[in-house]
């Protein structure tokens, strides 16, 4: 596995929807490369024969009756929204002008 470089970090930040300035990239990419190198040792120990564990305690899906139960009122759900209109979340335009 290869280490992370500055352009990788820029690409990942875009995927994760976090704007990064040049200064951010300078600061974080060096630190991230060190961390990635350190955690890469996970691939050293476990062979093909070892099963993966996704959850610490074995659990199966739980179900309940398909009946309506009380939940958040619409006003409560919208109370902390940065913007709302007509009982809905309001966002800036989805597509840019170039689209």
């Amino acid at each position, binding site marked *: 596995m290869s280490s992370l470089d500055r352009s990788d970090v820029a690409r990942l930040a875009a995927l994760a929807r976090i704007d990064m300035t040049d200064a951010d990239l300078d600061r974080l990419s060096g630190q991230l490369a060190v961390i990635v190198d350190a955690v*890469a040792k996970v691939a050293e120990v476990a062979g093909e024969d070892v099963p993966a564990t996704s959850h610490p305690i074995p659990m199966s899906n739980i179900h309940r009756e398909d009946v309506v139960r009380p939940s958040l009122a619409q006003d409560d759900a919208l109370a*902390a929204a940065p913007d709302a209109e007509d009982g809905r979340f309001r*966002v800036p335009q989805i597509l840019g002008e170039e689209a």
Partner: protein
Amino acid sequence: MSVTDWTRATAAQMADALAAGEVTSVELVQAHLDRIAAVDGPVHAFLHIDAEGALETARAVDADRAAGVSLPRLAGVPIGIKDVLVTKGLPTTAGSRILEGWIPPYDATVTRRVREARMPILGKTNMDEFAMGSSTEHSGYGPTRNPWDLDRIPGGSGGGSAAALAAFEAPLTIGSDTGGSIRQPASVTATVGVKPTYGGVSRFGAIALASSLDQLGPCGRTVLDTALLHEVMGGHDEMDATSLDEPVPAVVEAALEGARMDLTGVKVGVVRELSGADGGYQAGVTQRFEESLAKLRDMGAEVVEVSCPSFEYALAAYYVILPSEASSNLAKFDSVRFGLRVEKTTVEKTMLATRAEGFGDEVKRRIILGTYALSAGYYDAYYGSAQKVRTLVQRDFDAAFERCDVLVSPTTPTTPFKIGERIDDPLAMYLNDIATIPANLAGIPGMSLPSGLAPEDGLPVGFQILAPAHEDARLYRIGAALEASLAAEWGGPLSAQAPELEVAE
């Protein structure tokens, strides 16, 4: 009991005094609010204080008690809640600027249980942003300071909950532990903290960090107090799909049994890989650990060494799994439904700008690390391998628990370090959690309790106890026995030795 300063009492003593009519809940709450006003400026354990809400609960409890209404054991005993839990009507930020000013429209299950237990909520305690950190320096609202030495970290992520106890600002607090965020702060502040078995406490309404690792738990200054709060918090909840459908372990009974200081027949395993056997642990940490082992032997326990070789890979696996799950959990902070919005021309640009401004550096590092580990072409090498390491860690624990009832180690390799010392070196920061992380990977319960002060710096050292899944009660029995044995030597609890804090006028 006759007490001049109620903030120094244990929660159990407060509960007994309330029941006996020797003090009122209003008096207890006011004493703690006064203490917070006097010392929390420099300590900064609290992000938000709800004086009026706490007093209102206290007045209602006092009125019901006067009217002869039957009340829960801790009714009227004040508590602080880590800001990771949502509290209806009270600001909740998880230590992040992206949630600044957010007032949740609902209560977490644990918040509801605290309210049903009629415990006045003093406020919300400080934490590393989204619980990512081991020092509380990554809080978006400034660090918490360790009451034992204000230049030092109180641990993290639950530094606020631990410092509030050590500074006598609250007798009980709630924490969350993803890789040690309850136990490591307890260790460096000479308090007690427990991470229950995964699923033992409902996480409904806990702002998620890494869902396969997170667990809420109780924090106190004594093992019995911690047990009393554990029983309030624990139990099945159908609102959390990972909640265990089984009774809360009898932890209070176990703590009372342990206090009788008889450990005849108990087998205690010292985990070689977690005990600094290969060096790297501070001398005073090792010394206090060895002394505590001697106490356990004096009480009849048999102490053996066990080896868990795969633990060498636990830290690396943890720092793959946690960022991966966090990068997914934190996608919900998208500027649409709640929290910060930095308005730009399109929703995508708004999202990019909001998350850039709202998240701190450590959160950004971990989101990017997780995005990388989950991305096409790298998934098998990182996340897939880390999940296999998890299996190996569980097998090591299973083998060790075949031979022993509990496993023990120092909670942290060192006493608290200075604020700022490791802030620019993430990897050095991560190493704080080397001894606490394996329990989260395996889902087993763990406790940290004080084992003394390191001779070289006079700062707290923590003793960690681990038990098999569902056997939380064992932590309390062994912990209460060790606590009683050490208190007999010290002439009282270690917390009483904390230096006096300067009191604001």
